[in-house]
């Protein structure tokens, strides 16, 4: 099996889905000949031409609106937002139109909005944001955040085949970080199923996105200290695999929730709430959240390092929790 980076895996999924289905098309800023700011769409323009790989002017509102209309006509738009931070510029067509339409009058709006997401690259307050919680709070949207090259491909394929609008955040921190074996053939990874990245018995670390890597590293460190951590990668926030979360917590009786997004109102609050509502009886310690603090994402390395959770901070917090 070939080894692919996260980015190559995304690119391959796009190539294969566009080959499979005439209705799939790409649109966004600089996605054509240029291949996108991160080269996620490289080679598609050459193969599929400007009709199916559409370079747009800068107009997030209109091109997401266009995607909504095209989706209702049976096409399968895959929108690229240049950085996830700019998704707020095209907010209405997503949270007001795409999210509500099937409920309101039955039309399907099957589109995918891909966006390079998250921090860790000294890119400052406007190229590092993690606003998945905004979308998780909009019934009608699915929210997917894969953490491995394998999942990136399988989940993107699922997202493209899904009959609903899917917000697909790609941790750009992982784009070129680690390669892994990714099957050449197409396959789909189901939306709504978490993955157990590491089994453990003392404590569950529940996370998603780039933090999965950090959590696994922390778990490895802790295993030497005889603290056995289970790492749950949510993979999709909506629909949420509650069962996987609760099964793990029922096993370990301790939960540490980790995300890159800021704390207040982050999706970690939802996980903590669900755990305390539904696994209260088994908890040996309060469910804990380790997140970024409530600030914009700062640029300078010492600040961003302090801002962002990492393996070291996760291990430290997990130790406390295990000792509770």
């Amino acid at each position, binding site marked *: 099996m070939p080894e692919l980076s996260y980015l190559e895996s995304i690119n391959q999924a796009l190539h294969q889905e566009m080959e499979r289905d005439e209705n799939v*098309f790409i649109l966004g800023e600089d996605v054509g000949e240029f291949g996108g700011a991160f080269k996620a769409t490289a080679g598609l323009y050459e193969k599929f031409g400007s*009709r*199916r790989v*559409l370079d*747009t*002017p800068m*107009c997030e*509102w*209109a*091109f*997401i*609106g*266009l*995607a*909504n*209309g*095209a*989706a*209702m*006509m*049976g*096409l399968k*738009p895959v929108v690229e937002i240049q950085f996830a931070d700019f998704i707020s510029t095209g907010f*209405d*067509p997503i949270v*007001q*139109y795409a999210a*509500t*339409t*099937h*409920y*309101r*009058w*039955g*039309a*399907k709006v*099957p589109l995918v909005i891909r966006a390079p997401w998250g921090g860790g690259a000294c890119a400052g307050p406007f190229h590092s944001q993690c606003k998945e919680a905004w979308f998780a709070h909009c*019934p*009608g949207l*699915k929210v997917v955040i894969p953490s491995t090259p394998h999942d990136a491909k399988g989940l993107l394929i699922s997202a493209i085949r899904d*009959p*609903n609008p899917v917000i697909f955040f790609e941790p750009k921190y992982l784009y070129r970080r680690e390669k892994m074996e990714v099957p050449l053939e197409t396959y789909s990874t189901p939306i709504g199923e978490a993955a157990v990245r590491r089994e453990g018995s003392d404590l569950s670390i529940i996370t998603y996105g780039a933090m999965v890597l950090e959590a696994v590293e922390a778990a490895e460190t802790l295993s030497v200290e005889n603290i056995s951590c289970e790492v749950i990668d949510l993979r999709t926030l909506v629909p949420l695999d509650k069962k996987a979360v609760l099964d793990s917590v029922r096993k370990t009786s301790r939960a540490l929730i980790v995300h890159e997004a800021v704390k207040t109102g982050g999706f970690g609050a939802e996980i903590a709430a669900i755990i305390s509502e539904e696994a209260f009886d088994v908890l040996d310690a309060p469910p804990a959240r380790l997140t970024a603090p409530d600030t914009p994402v700062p640029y300078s390395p010492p600040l961003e390092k302090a801002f962002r959770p990492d393996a070291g901070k996760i291990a430290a917090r997990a130790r406390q929790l295990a000792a509770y």
Partner: protein
Amino acid sequence: MSADSINKIPGKKLLELLYWMMLTRRIDDRCEALFKQGRFPGGIFSQEGHEAISVGSAILLEEGDAIAPMHRDLGAYLVRGMSPGRIFAQAMGRQGSPSGGRDVNTHGLGDLSLRIFGYVSHLPQSMGIALGAAYSFLYRKEDRVALTYFGDGASSEGGCHEALNLAAVLKAPVVFILENNQYAYSTPIEKQCLVENLSIRAEGYGIPGVTIDGTDVIAVMEATREAIGRARAGDGPTLIECKNLRLKGHAAHDPADYIPPGLLKRWKKRDPISLFRERLENSGILDGNKLAELQGRIEAEIEEGVEWAEASPWPEAATLEKDVFSDA
């Protein structure tokens, strides 16, 4: 009176136009009455003064064309095949409406089998939606057109600019109809822009733009016909500004006493339906008998619609959480 340009149009077509406009008006009247009787749980927008625009444009669409209306386009829904009963049912919040009681008045009054896109409040979302439908026609090399509407108010929103420019760049087969009824809720046009004709903005996108009399259904039809022709020929979008006045309040709750009486009086004289009826009478196409026949037919349809709507059950609370997502 000298020869009217309507003489080029078959009498049957002209009567059809009149029928749709009258039907629209009578539904509007009936909605106001039903609202006042408390038979609508929510509000309802007035259509008065907009009938020539919505009917004169939508009438030109063919099967397979798409339409994304705004909140003064009841006429367009009717012309495109939405039954009065379903419209009343929507305002009443009943199961039989296009939204099954989930959306209010003309919001969410969509039906893909009719290629009508339900709108959201956030103006002017429909412009992006219509553009998307138009792009699907380009994509599939279909000889189709998408038609959409927005108000003078919405013309100040950023989305309006984005949609017009993107449509221009893509040469998308879409017709944008600007219903300049001189008010955005209580805000008069002078507080919204400095230009005489908003259609001038078309030049900034490199597309054709015209301003026409929005009370003249024939003028609307002719301008739309040209625009549709251009769209089907691959020459891209057109902006048509129709000038009129909203003859009632923003919605049924609004007495609109901010509209200067003189202005209102002037435009009431230009009631699109009276104007057109007169023209048809003067041209000998309409007489008392035919009018009575039309009126009778309309009243019957409306009665039937109201009855149908009221017979439609309330949605069941148990369905509340259904259909947030599509399963397949």
